[in-house]
């Protein structure tokens, strides 16, 4: 009896972990039945490239949500840091150096969020809602509302968003590399362990001697850095920085995290889930396009899928 319960529990645990993956497979099967061209290598590679930007942002969001927080400013951080990168390139700075500096500036913007939340004791939702508006405003001020173009023709820079390496789109490679690094950080370092501990029980984490404020600032900085990295891909792909870039990206990122099974109350979740969540959203977008569903209706479908995923998750938890 006891072992039966334990067995059932273990099966439950496995489905909990595999849930998002099973969902992704089911989605792929459904889409490819309706349109076999979905499975063509070219389309799949294209899909990976499309997913990369959301996945990178969602990785950062995973850390934030694991601490029990939220970051609404990621889209604005992307816009501001990519505008700054483009500005540096226009003024003649080496594009790769511009990207590195831009990413660091993104981390600084994230640190601002972290400091408002820890030192300013603001709710993450409020703090990042404010900086979302503020960073977007700064982007518009900096760009005067116009796209920044004329970024030069550095090969390395073009490769970053548009190129292929061994036949795989470079953004997709960046997405997988970032995943590997972040997986190690989350699961193998004290920083990762502390991230979970804070989300699981912030008071206990504090009393265990964890510098909760510092970890949180680092987590929001990481989210900012990854948003800026996503911004760099976007700038390269568009060969310009758009002042309105990244609008509503926070919603897709949060959706990817939630679809990946991470708990919004913090402490529970896996970054692999987030990657799968991003792939689910990408497959939906791509598949619905292939099926000729109007973009208006696509939004409805995406919303429904999120609701279904969360409902299934609830059932499992109960």
């Amino acid at each position, binding site marked *: 009896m006891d072992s039966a319960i334990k067995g059932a529990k273990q099966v439950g645990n496995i489905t909990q972990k595999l849930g998002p993956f099973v969902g992704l497979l089911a989605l792929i099967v459904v889409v490819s039945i309706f349109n076999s061209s979905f499975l063509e290598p070219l389309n799949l590679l294209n899909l990976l490239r499309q997913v990369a930007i959301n996945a990178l942002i969602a990785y950062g969001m995973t850390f934030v949500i694991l601490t029990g927080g939220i970051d609404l400013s990621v889209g604005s951080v992307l816009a501001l840091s990519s505008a700054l990168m483009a500005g540096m390139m226009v003024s003649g700075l080496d594009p790769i150096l511009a990207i590195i500096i831009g990413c660091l500036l993104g981390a600084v913007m994230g640190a601002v969020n972290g400091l408002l939340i820890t030192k300013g004791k603001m709710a993450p939702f409020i703090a990042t809602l404010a900086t979302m508006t503020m960073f977007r405003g700064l982007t518009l001020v900096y760009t005067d509302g116009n796209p920044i173009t004329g970024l030069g023709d550095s090969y390395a820079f073009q490769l970053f968003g548009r190129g292929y390496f061994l036949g795989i789109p470079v953004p997709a490679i960046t997405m997988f590399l970032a995943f590997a690094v972040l997986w190690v950080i989350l699961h*193998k370092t*004290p920083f990762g362990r502390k991230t979970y*501990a804070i989300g699981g*029980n912030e008071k206990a984490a504090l009393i*265990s001697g964890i510098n909760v404020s510092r970890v949180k600032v680092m987590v929001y900085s990481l989210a900012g850095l990854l948003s800026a990295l996503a911004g760099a891909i976007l700038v390269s792909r568009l060969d310009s920085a758009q002042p309105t870039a990244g609008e509503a990206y926070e919603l897709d990122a949060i959706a990817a995290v939630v679809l990946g099974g991470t708990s919004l109350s913090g402490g529970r979740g896996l970054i692999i889930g987030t990657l799968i969540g991003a792939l689910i959203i990408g497959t939906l977008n791509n598949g619905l396009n292939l099926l000729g569903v109007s973009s208006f209706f696509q939004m409805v479908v995406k919303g429904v899928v999120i609701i279904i995923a969360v409902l299934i998750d609830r059932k499992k938890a109960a």
Partner: protein
Amino acid sequence: MKISMENIHKAFGTNQVLEGVDMEIKDGEVHALMGENGAGKSTLMKILTGLHQKDEGTFTIDGEEKTFANPKEAEQFGIAFIHQELNVWPDLTVLENLFINKEPVTKFGLIQTKKMKAIANEQFEKLAVSIPLHKEAGECSVGEQQMIEIAKALMTDAKVIIMDEPSAALTDREIEKLFDVIRSLKASGVSIVYISHRMEEIFTICDRITVMRDGHTVDTTPIPETSFDDVVRKMVGRELTDRFPERTPDSGEAVLEVKGLGRKGVFQDVNFNARAGEIVGVAGLMGAGRTEIMRTLFGLDGKYDGEIFVNGQKVDVKNPSQAVKLGLGFITEDRKGEGLVLDFPIKDNIALPSLRSFTKNSLIQEKEEQEFVDLLIKRLTVKTESSKTEAKNLSGGNQQKVVIAKWIGIGPKVLILDEPTRGVDVGAKREIYQLMNELTDRGVAIIMVSSELPEVLGMSDRVLVVHEGTIAGELNREEADQEKIMTLATGGQVNG
């Protein structure tokens, strides 16, 4: 109204809280109810007011058998309960608070503010209080909030009012006012049950006193026929059993020293030290400031007055992270809320404060971590199949062992234990005591805050008694007994 309770029994699960309690409340008397923390006072009052139901015994009002299914029924019968934690809605006005859920309405369902004001004013006049009705309750002093609660109780036409530690947060002047109100209530035939730990107050305002101990009534006596000492004796008069392992104290240098420690309005001028290999017991009543002192010492409440020395060096403990680096460990009284990450496996909980010690090149060395954890699980005999079991699935005693394991892991110089055996069964208790002895044998200084007097007496080499935010006295192992501790804890003096 005459209330009589006889032979009341009540258990929560296997925990027998009341085992035959008798109490009788007469018309227009102020009746004190006293007893140690956990004696069963609150449970008895909750049965009286319908929050809990008795398992056994008789409960009569004016000779008629009664059972209240819920607090509302008790209230309708004229029994009001003013809880220790005041139930005001801080964002609502005084007036809104007075009438919450009882607002008079017109036939169109609109609230009759004028009528409310008239009733409220009349009530406040009777009580001789003057709180502006439009003030937000959150901005009222605790004393004023108390008056709001009393006015609310009277508006329900209460014949019996139970006051649980009403003076705990009041200033002397406010207490005087409260006593005036109690006297005038008494004159109009209202009975008061007055629960307090403060001996002086009870002897000032009460007519009779019932003392409870371990779920029994010791007795009820008229106040003029008893004394401080007599009441203390009745409260604590139980034998120490050999629940505690033998201790051979052997203390060394002072590892921790505190001079003039204070936090405004919470505690002040606290001086003590803890020596290597010593267990310092910290006794006192709930709310005396024991836990607050420890939290400050551990850097949990930020800025403080006074000085803290570790190994003779003056240190500035700004946050727990610093405290841990200094070799302090803190086992809090709230195991689930502050001690454990319940969703974490045992392993991660134990390793949490020690992560640094098995991190190489920024990576956690999982093999070392596992060995470290396994060793501690074995040493503390945590009953579990695997270190991967989540902490929430363990019993209270095993959870507490995990918390202790995590602090032993840092190799502490000073271990602060706040209510270390709360909610822990007898067997596990003894194991925890044994562990404390082992730790002191290895030179750890232990500070143990406890509300269980037998535990304080059984384990401590020295006892500090905290009363109203300061250390009222220090007793060594030989001189410490329950009566002396209770006397100091309730504001009395101990000679010699």
